[in-house]
């Protein structure tokens, strides 16, 4: 465990939450750091849509293959089970015989993952999603790492529900839908930019995020402006000087 990176991570996450922030960008930072801190190969935050679907809010890589692994868990897999039981769910070797989730295990193994862990995102009695960690090596995750992973999942919950006022139960559902629509806006922008510059989706995401950071704007706002604009020029022609 890199304790310096660990403390830096919680400082960065806390810093973000002090001010107004973009929830998808925040969750992306969290998945990024989960990978680096927990010796994982990939990580994702999956949210439970009341429509009855699990939907990806952020992933450490924006490649279609990884996103597909999260989507696949609408049928079966550790995320679905974690969401249903509210408990951590683990698979230590996805290539062995007698897999509990054969379709998911096949797809994960084909992408080079051997072990997976899903940690619940809980608010009081409600499970709103899961933090999903993938590893290239089989075997159990270290128990100390898992405690940190659960702490990161809890921070993800707090970040997602950053509304000042959670007095009304309905606020949780409203925030969740807002986050899910932000994610759709970002996917649309990734597609437009990937097509414009003939780059892959992960690269397109990085460019959008870097531009948002450098100009001190929310990722979702940058993505929305870009998709809504009649031209596909990127970075967009300067309309005004970025603040700061």
């Amino acid at each position, binding site marked *: 465990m890199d304790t310096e990176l660990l403390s830096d991570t919680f400082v960065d996450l806390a810093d973000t939450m002090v001010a107004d922030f973009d929830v998808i960008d925040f969750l992306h930072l969290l998945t990024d750091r989960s990978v680096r801190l927990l010796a994982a190969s990939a990580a994702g935050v999956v949210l439970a*849509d009341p429509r*009855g679907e699990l*939907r990806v809010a952020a992933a450490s890589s924006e490649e*279609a293959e990884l*996103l597909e692994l999260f989507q696949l868990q609408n049928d079966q897999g550790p995320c679905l089970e974690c969401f249903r039981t509210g408990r951590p769910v683990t698979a230590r070797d996805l290539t062995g015989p007698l897999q509990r989730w054969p379709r998911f295990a096949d797809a994960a193994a084909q992408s080079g993952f051997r072990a997976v862990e899903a940690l619940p995102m809980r608010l009081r009695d409600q499970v709103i999603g899961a933090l999903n960690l993938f590893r290239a090596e089989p075997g159990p995750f270290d128990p100390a790492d898992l405690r940190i992973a659960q702490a990161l999942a809890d921070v993800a919950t707090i970040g997602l529900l950053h509304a000042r006022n959670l007095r009304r139960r309905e606020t949780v559902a409203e925030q969740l*839908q807002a986050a899910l629509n932000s994610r759709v806006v970002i996917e649309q922008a990734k*597609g437009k930019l990937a097509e414009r510059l003939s780059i892959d989706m992960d690269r397109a995401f990085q460019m959008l995020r870097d531009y948002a950071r450098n100009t001190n704007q929310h990722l979702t706002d940058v993505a929305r402006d870009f998709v*809504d604009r009649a031209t596909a020029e990127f970075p967009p022609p300067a309309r005004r000087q970025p603040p700061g």
Partner: protein
Amino acid sequence: MARPDAPVADSRALVAWGRLAAHAAAHGRRVSVADVCAVAVSSARLSGAWLAAARGGGPDFVMCVTDPVCEQLAELQLMLGEGPCHDVLASAAPVLAADLGDEEFSRRWPAFTPAARQLGAGAVFAFPLIVGVIRAGVLGLYRGSPGPLSEGQLGDLLVLADAATVMLLGSADGDAENEDGAALDGQAPDLALHRAEIDQATGMLTVQLGVSAAAAFARLRAYAYSQDRRLADVAGDIVARRLRLHRDPG
């Protein structure tokens, strides 16, 4: 038919589409947004529903109402320029005002809230008809008595709002409405609306076709329908760059 571990989503959406089709058939018409309003009221035990298309920035074109109170609730918001339907278009999230007597709502909509209560609304729920940047309109609902929606009712209403969104975005030229309101035109509903590839493909098509996101989404759906393929599969081909769509000649 259902797998033991089948996702709830498909079944919830299937049931909702089944109810819409049955309701439309009982009235001898194609499935339209009017059926969405009626089915929303019955499945979530509400008093009324209305649907407004977003022509400009706001919920400014009321397409159907299930009772006179709805008509007044919709008009009130247009007149006052405030209320849940304005908020959902701005925030792209539902507004679930389960008790209009809650002081939060009289602070939030100082003119709308007392007027709505006077009309007999105890609870108002509004759902954005939105796919990412594409804003089609708003589904509004009210109940005479205050009280929250159950998780199941919320899920049903989200699925019904998706159905209405698809209907409103039905035609590439944005001229979705006819005398029945926006209708499905005999198209099979696609239940897999929420897939990253569909949104990515929509973005890619804005460049390939040189059109808005709304028009790109409509072209994507029209193409999938004309080829008798699933929307998610066509989107996957576009994202994998195995398929390109071309600008309409002329």
